């Protein structure tokens, strides 16, 4: 007599019947070997559930609290910094517009376009109210990683403002484009999640 595979025995423990489960159930009823195997499986799972709970030896709350506090302070600074950054960039571009040549250099125009795109994406993102939505752990992890990378680009943008004009403009363009790419991805994460869960 052919006995049931482990996969078939495990399937009998699931709530919904899968194709072949009815036949497998009939087999278990008639076969003492498979019945014993199924009983052992139930006992093994019961013993797994009864394993003693393991406890951490160190208190990690101080580290969590410190990181949460640091992030809050960083967020406040970042918001203020970004407003200043955008204003500084606008002034710089305004100066270029009103300059003797009376036209925007190609690089500056591209920076301005990237900034506008970044602003549009942030506005789109705010419409999905990401702070007010529940995300599953995986999606939240991806969103968090993207937000961290955006924060890192923002810090670089602040530093780049201090550079001399020529390398500064090239670097600014690169960073604003990177920011747009990351925001694009973040919008995708939130929009995809929202459509998956029917929000």
């Amino acid at each position, binding site marked *: 007599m052919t*006995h049931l*595979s*482990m*996969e078939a025995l*495990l*399937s009998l423990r699931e709530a919904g019947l899968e194709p072949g489960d009815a036949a497998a159930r009939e087999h278990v009823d008639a076969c003492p*070997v498979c019945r*014993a*195997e199924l009983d*052992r*499986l139930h006992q*093994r*799972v019961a*013993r*797994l*559930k009864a*394993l003693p*709970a*393991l*406890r*951490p*030896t*160190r208190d*990690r*709350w101080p*580290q*969590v*609290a410190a*990181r*949460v*506090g640091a*992030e*809050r302070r960083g967020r406040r600074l970042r918001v203020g910094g970004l407003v200043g950054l955008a204003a500084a960039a606008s002034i710089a571009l305004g100066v270029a517009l009103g300059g003797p040549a009376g036209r925007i250099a190609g690089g500056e125009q591209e920076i301005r376009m990237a900034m506008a795109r970044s602003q549009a994406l942030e506005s789109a993102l705010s419409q999905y109210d*990401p*702070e*007010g*939505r*529940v*995300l*599953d*752990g*995986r999606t*939240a*992890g991806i969103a*968090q990683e993207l937000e961290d990378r955006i924060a890192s680009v923002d810090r670089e943008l602040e530093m780049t403002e201090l550079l001399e004009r020529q390398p500064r403009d090239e670097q600014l363009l690169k960073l604003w484009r990177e920011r747009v790419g990351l925001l694009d991805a973040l919008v995708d994460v939130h929009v995809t999640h929202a459509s998956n869960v029917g929000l």
Partner: protein
Amino acid sequence: MDSYLLANAESVVARARAGDEAALEELYRAFEAPVYNLARRICRTTEDAEDVLQETFFEVCRSIGRYREEGSLWGWVRTIAASKALMRLRRNKYRDTDQLKDEIMGHRREDTALRMDLEAALERLSETGRAVVWLHDVEGYTHDEIAGMMGRTPSFSKSQLARAHQRLRRWLGEEVET
């Protein structure tokens, strides 16, 4: 889990959302033990499990505004913890070498007919196998949910569970004479 928190979850969550650090710490104290236990059962070392504990609560603190009280608070925290633990496995790249090691260990055990206790046998499973066993059999996640968290298919989760049980059965000396 803390019975005070279970009874007062709504007000603690409301305070935590408002940024009250004492409320955030109450959440940590209430769920610290089950989160660590889940993480330690999935991760290979205590250090990794403690890091997962820390990462989980950092995520809980920053995302508490996203918790909509549609499911249980523990269910929400647990899903974050499971994702962080699985992320830690991926980051440590255990999986690449796991299969081979597991095959070797499996054959050795078969040869020597070693009987182990359940804790030791669980510890000997591959990272992926142990994670699937724990998430499915103990935490009660479905194969679809596990597949979602692992970025794999439900069939992968099912076959990992079956292989893990075959090994546990052998290592625990539970094979039935036919």
